[in-house]
């Protein structure tokens, strides 16, 4: 099977090269036969890579330890659940996973792209094939997943216990899917640049893909946060680790794009900017991969240092320079159709939103690279950590959150004073009201006060938008209000789904702000002894150590501590926290002992307990007890975010032509029938008739 896998990699290499050449040449010379060949090459590439994936999984599931990759990352007693994830748990396999998924996306885009955008497809095929070929090249020449060992070990090394977590099954694939799918908008952007078809058409073709990428990245980041939270030693749900930052960067850029694209659709502005954002998002995704795999920056996530980094560096430079040059030559074709008319307009608020997003991305990038930059320039390595990122990003994040509430309230082009008064009265009052309540309640933390009052403002904005829209439908079509609300959402998925994402951001920000109030204590307890800790919610929590139990499980020896918890004397239940020593099939220890934290999650606080160790092998145990406020809202906010994203993405919907004024709340009255249908998603057409009003 490994021979089959190896051969299919070579096949993929040749087919991918062919697809790239025929795509570019066929596109440039308008040769239908070559274009068709490029299209077919993407299919063949996908088949070849899937065969390779199948071969590797076959080796993993049959415990073929003659394959170095299988021996290095799995063992006979590894739970089946985690065997599948061994595919992407190491360098070589994850490269294969990446290439294979990209080739699947390549096939999807070739088959599902609507007729209107066919002209781009040969170039899209060329770009996806070329990127996939790069990954195949890295595998063939330096990181071959099918590399054999000179001998066959009896058992493999097993998987790092910290990876043996459900997070491992979902987090990397989601993040990879997000990273990989950015290639598709990038391919369309390159195709648009090459074909010089630079009107809004290519944006329409990729809009869904950008939302797909954004959603996968969001889910990947959220699962990663959850995983880091339940795994001790990864520093809570967000630690500003370089690799976390690397995943956040394309997310920030894509989020900026999802906003600025509306300005181009509506007003024909920001064409250069939008193209640059897509090119930048792809470059950042490759940059993130480079950081993870080269070991240039110390991180808990990095793979072992290897030559793979050089390949990625070269690729990164080629992609950056290539797309920058191409972009520069096409700049004259990207002139805006309209000019900014007023500072107080929707487009201006989008511009500021974008500046803030890019500012955020830049500061994160700068902070991540600072050790390297400072060493290169000044000869001393200077690192910045979470304090830097918090200090810079919290103000920027709050400004963005404020814009989340302001933007939807301001009319396109130019807002009138009466429009502003009507729009801002309720939300602004709500924000001030929340601030006063919290001040009276005794909250003094500035960051938290700002977060919660701005959050109240944003929630009021969103509620007002929903209420006005529903009431407008109610009046116009005589729909009962609940039905009007549902129809409002399902007929304008992009807009109202977006608002739901805004709600999610408020929840997330609120949850992040809650972390300012966490409390913590350490205690060494004999069985029967109790430690108490006052929570930020004003309650007193008591933790009683009940005892230690030791037993063997599937591939590990477990030392578990049982703790009884009360709140103000009332029983809450029991929690357990474990030390695990993983063992191989013969019972010999592998890896270092790992810790399983105990978590009791509630709406207000999470109780988070850690067994630090036993004193001299007795039942006297050392614990760390932490009370983390509002963490539940991170996961709930994440759920709402995904929900909003899915609503935006959901196909179909939107019957044509909403009659009459579109929606209360706009300062300008749009002409009727401005709703069209592209690719199953409603959009407001770039409205040039606006001047008639």
């Amino acid at each position, binding site marked *: 099977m490994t021979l089959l896998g190896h051969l299919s990699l070579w096949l993929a290499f040749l087919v991918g090269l062919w697809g790239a050449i025929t795509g570019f040449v066929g596109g440039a010379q308008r040769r239908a036969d070559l274009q068709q060949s490029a299209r077919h090459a993407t299919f063949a590439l996908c088949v070849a890579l899937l065969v390779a994936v199948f071969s590797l999984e076959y080796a993993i599931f049959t415990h073929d330890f003659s394959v170095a990759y299988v021996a290095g990352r799995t063992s006979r007693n590894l739970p089946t659940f985690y065997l599948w994830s061994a595919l992407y748990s190491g360098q070589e396999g994850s490269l294969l996973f990446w290439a294979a998924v990209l080739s699947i996306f390549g096939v999807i885009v070739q088959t599902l792209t609507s007729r209107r955008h066919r002209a781009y497809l040969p170039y899209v095929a060329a770009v996806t094939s070329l990127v996939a070929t790069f990954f195949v090249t890295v595998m063939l020449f330096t990181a071959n997943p099918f590399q054999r060992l000179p001998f066959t070990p009896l058992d493999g090394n097993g998987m790092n216990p910290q990876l043996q977590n459900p997070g491992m099954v979902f987090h990397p694939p989601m993040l990879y899917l997000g990273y990989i799918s950015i290639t598709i908008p990038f391919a369309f952007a390159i195709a648009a640049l090459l074909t010089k078809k630079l009107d809004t058409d290519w944006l329409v073709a990729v809009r869904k893909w950008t939302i797909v990428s954004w959603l996968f990245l969001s889910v990947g980041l959220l699962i990663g946060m959850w995983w880091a939270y339940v795994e001790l030693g990864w520093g809570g749900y967000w630690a500003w680790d370089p690799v976390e930052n690397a995943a956040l960067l394309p997310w920030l850029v894509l989020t900026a794009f999802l906003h600025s694209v509306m300005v181009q659709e509506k007003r024909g502005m920001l064409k250069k900017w939008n193209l640059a954002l897509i090119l930048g998002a792809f470059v950042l995704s490759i940059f993130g991969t480079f950081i993870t795999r080269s070991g240039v920056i110390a991180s808990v*996530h990095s793979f072992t240092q290897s030559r793979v980094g050089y390949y990625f560096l070269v690729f990164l430079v080629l992609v950056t320079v290539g797309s920058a040059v191409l972009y520069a030559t096409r700049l004259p074709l990207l002139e805006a159709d309209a000019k900014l008319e007023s500072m107080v307009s929707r487009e201006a608020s989008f511009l500021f939103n974008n500046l803030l997003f890019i500012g955020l991305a830049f500061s994160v990038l700068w902070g991540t690279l600072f050790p390297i930059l400072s060493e290169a320039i000044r000869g001393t390595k200077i690192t910045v950590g979470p304090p830097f990122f918090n200090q810079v990003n919290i103000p*920027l994040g709050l400004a963005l959150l404020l814009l989340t509430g302001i933007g939807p309230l301001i009319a396109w082009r130019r807002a009138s004073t009466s429009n502003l008064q009507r729009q801002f009265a309720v939300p602004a009052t709500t924000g001030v009201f929340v601030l006063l309540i919290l001040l009276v309640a005794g909250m003094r933390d500035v960051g938290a006060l700002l977060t919660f009052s701005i959050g109240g403002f944003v929630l009021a904005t969103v509620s007002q938008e929903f209420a006005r829209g529903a009431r407008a439908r109610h009046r116009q079509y005589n729909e009962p209000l609940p039905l009007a609300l549902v129809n409002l959402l399902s007929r304008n998925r992009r807009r109202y789904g977006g608002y739901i994402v805004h709600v999610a951001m408020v929840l997330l920000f609120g949850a992040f702000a809650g972390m300012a109030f966490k409390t913590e204590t350490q205690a060494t307890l004999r069985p029967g002894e109790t430690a108490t800790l006052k929570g930020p919610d004003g309650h007193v929590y008591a933790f009683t150590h009940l005892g230690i139990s030791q037993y063997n499980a599937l591939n590990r020896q477990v030392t578990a501590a049982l703790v009884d918890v009360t709140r103000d004397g009332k029983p809450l239940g029991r929690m357990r926290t474990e030390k695990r020593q993983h063992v191989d099939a013969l019972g010999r220890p592998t890896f270092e002992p790992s810790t399983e934290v105990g978590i009791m999650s509630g709406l207000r606080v999470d109780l988070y307990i850690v067994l630090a160790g036993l004193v001299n092998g007795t039942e006297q145990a050392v614990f760390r007890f932490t009370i983390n406020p509002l963490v539940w809202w991170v996961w709930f906010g994440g759920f709402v975010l995904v929900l909003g994203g899915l609503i935006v993405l959901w196909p179909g919907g939107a019957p044509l032509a909403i009659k009459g004024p579109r929606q209360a709340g706009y300062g300008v009255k749009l002409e009727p029938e401005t709703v069209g249908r592209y690719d199953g998603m409603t959009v407001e057409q770039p409205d040039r008739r606006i001047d008639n009003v």
Partner: protein
Amino acid sequence: MGRPPEGWYNTSMKAGTKFALGAILIVGAVGYLMASGIKQTGQYFLTPSELAQRVSADPSFYDLGMKIGARVVPGTVEKETATQTLRFHITDGTVSYPVVFKGLPPDTFTDSVEVVVEGRLQKDGIIHATDVLAKCGSRYESVPKA
């Protein structure tokens, strides 16, 4: 054309100019936040040899928050579970320093890993660590993320 300009914000200045001012304000704020952030929170990242050199040249490097990247000297790790105190030595092959750390070390910490110690070198010659990060040993790869 649309309605006539009204309100305080539609003064004689062009929207583009005003936007540019706003943009400069944002870019300036980002720049300022970054510069001050680095100034206030940036830490030296040194190897033990570099630290020894700097300390001998400039005593202000004592009691200065920094990060030190080195290897744990095998056999030097002492754990006192009851007080949660961890003592060990780190070295880069030429210079070695004793480290004392109160708290929970990460699961990956052993006596043969590369560590990043965050803390201060005191006059007593001991690095008082506030945090210890362990890089994984060579036996397996660490956590992959895209």
